[in-house]
């Protein structure tokens, strides 16, 4: 873009093109919404910020060409948080009030812990040579829906049909358990009938 300008040689790849700028913009939005998720006192507002944080995570996946993961992120997590919102409204009272405030020593401890974590991450991750190169590692349609599905549901040596089916049985079990807990027993039904009569 600017032929005269030489970018300094750094281990980090600095924003060179649209993709890098997009990454940094999305990452900043993601961090800000994540901080708001824990900082906001109203539980519902915090849920909404969590949703926006998930959306930006999905956009990050899109930037990495992992389209199905991005959509699964939106479908599963945002759908899940929406249901969480429903239950928050249903099950909590005094929702709109700022009901609780964390004590200062706890905030200080949290800050110290997170700064230590960031320091360790930067110290360990920055020297890795793989991080500084921006090259795309896989073929362009490696994560397309067709390849993804063939891999997930195929029955060759490197595909995952059996774990997939096992997980579906687990889901069925949880569904049946939920219905068993929620349904009325025979005694309860008879009692209700008596009350009505």
């Amino acid at each position, binding site marked *: *873009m600017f032929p005269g300008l030489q970018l300094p040689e750094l281990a980090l790849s600095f924003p060179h093109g649209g993709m890098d700028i997009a990454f940094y913009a999305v990452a900043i939005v993601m961090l800000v919404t994540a901080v708001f998720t824990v900082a906001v006192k109203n539980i519902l507002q915090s849920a909404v910020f969590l949703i926006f944080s998930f959306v930006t995570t999905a956009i990050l996946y899109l930037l990495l060409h992992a389209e199905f993961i991005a959509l699964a992120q939106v479908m599963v997590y945002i759908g899940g948080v929406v249901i969480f919102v429903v239950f928050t409204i249903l099950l909590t009272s005094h929702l709109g009030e700022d009901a609780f405030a964390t004590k200062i020593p706890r905030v200080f401890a949290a800050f110290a812990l997170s700064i230590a974590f960031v320091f360790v991450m930067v110290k360990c991750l920055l020297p890795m040579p793989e991080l500084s190169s921006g090259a795309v590692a896989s073929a362009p349609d490696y994560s397309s829906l067709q390849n993804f599905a063939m891999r997930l549901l195929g029955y060759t040596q490197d595909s995952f049909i059996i774990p997939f089916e096992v997980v579906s049985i687990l889901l069925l079990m949880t569904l049946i358990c939920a219905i068993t807990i929620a349904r009325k027993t025979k005694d309860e039904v008879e009692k209700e009938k008596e009350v009505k009569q």
Partner: protein
Amino acid sequence: MFVPSVTNPIGDFVRNLVPQVTAYLPVAFQSETLDSVVAFLINAVICIIAVCAVNIGSAPILIYMERKVCAHVQCRLGPMRLGWHGTMQTIADVLKMLFKEVYAPSGADKLMFYTAPMIVLIAPFMVCALIPFSKDLVVADVSMGIPLIIAVNGFGVLGILLGGWSSNNKYSLLGALRSGAQIISYEISFAMILLFVVMISGSTNLMDITMSQQGTVFDWWIFKIPVLGFIAFILFFISSTAEMNRAPFDIAEAEQELTGGYHTEYNGTPFAMFYLAEYIALVTNSALATTCFLGGFHAPCIGFAPVDNVLNMVPGLVWFFGKVFFMIWCYMMVRWTFVRPRVDQLMDFEWKFLLPVNLVLLTAGAAWIAISG
């Protein structure tokens, strides 16, 4: 340097055109990167204008149509005074709504109150960008169209819930919770019908789904699979009506019980945004039904060459909007014909009837594919 690009035929046209124009500029401004950046910006503006034109432009037309259809169903005339047959009436109403003062009720959560209408608008605009209006007219020709539609539909219910809760009004909250329960339930059968279409057409791209229905009327998915296609179409119609919160499934609004449901406390522009989202959802759901079942932008050929040649002379865009407005007319007639079910009847209908039928339909579709090869 990587520059994102809009992948559709008009995008290709602009990408070809920009280097030809920049060739006349001084040499200092000529570079491939600059060309691609300029082409991308032009394409992005074109896409945004196109989506906004279809969405915002169709809303006044639909409001007028709704009033007229409603009036004629009830043996009235509808708006007649302002302009020829009342055509200016909706424009006047829209202007009135946009110039109203915007205020929130006391005790409302202001941030959520004003964010909710914006969240509601995400899903319809996003779905509209995926729909192929003609062979060359599609904003985002992405390979995962149907999963994307299923994914973004979740935002609508989020906006409704937030709007209802943040209004600080018990009727709004009741309406929002009813609507949340309803949309979360009907989303399942809505997604399953779309998966049925994906299964029989073998693609999640909406353009591929349209192209798989090329040929005569009997190649459309509604007729191509005997009986199953028609059942799937009817189920899609029912579940999308419930998904849009339209009558007869409008228990979320139910003005006789809840004074208007989740948008009771809204006025001015935020209310207009809820209203707009409702009507854009009508367009996008009709467009989805058209794309998935009624052959998209293909002309209704009957397999008799002289007639087909005449029909094919009409551009695809006209056929597409003709079918879309036929579907919208169907939705409106259903709205003014059927009575509203109770909340428990609505839930029973979804969980005890629609969902099992959908599962059977998916299995039958798979069997049909296996048998017909």
